[in-house]
């Protein structure tokens, strides 16, 4: 499995691969979990 983070730089979308070994992968996958409600909260908190 490969995980890449997309980000904007130099006016275009760029990608950086997350460097993970198998042990770190599981932990990383847990850290990126987010519910629909949390995303909605994040978006609307920032729009105010």
């Amino acid at each position, binding site marked *: *499995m*490969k*995980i*890449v*983070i*997309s*980000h*904007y730089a130099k006016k275009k*979308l760029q*990608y950086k691969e997350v460097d993970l070994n198998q042990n770190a992968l599981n932990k990383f*996958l*847990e850290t*990126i*979990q*987010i*519910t*629909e*409600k*949390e*995303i*909605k909260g*994040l*978006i609307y908190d*920032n729009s105010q």
Partner: protein
Amino acid sequence: MTTIYMNHQALIISIDEFKKQIPGYNPDKAEEFHRQSAKMADKAFEKALKSSEFAKVIFVSGGSASGKTEFITSQLFDEDAIIFDSTLSSEKGAEIKLRKVQKVKKKIELVTVIPDDLNRAFIAFLNRDRKFDEQHFFKTHSGSRKTLL
């Protein structure tokens, strides 16, 4: 399979590309065409699994407007593989697809694209031609990450 497009060597199957093949498709109402285009992509995927000689399948997953399609065209265009461009926001759907690949004994790779900033991705989501209800954004970003677990 006219809606599958060959990009150098890779055979790319994209649900959004299939939408363009549906008579009457209107990007402003993309959501209304999503179920049908997803079914078309699934059928094309099955056909490609059975009939193509590619030994590898790459699933490119991630929430809506995370940059999957651009990643495919810029980074994976010369892969000798079937590439399925999908959010994989349903665990069940992902499981079914993986089983189908395993059945034909092809190698599986999963690439997930995660935006560094959900707010930035949300703005991209709102500004693109294909229009979906914002719930689609929340659902696909949450669902695709859950599927990874």
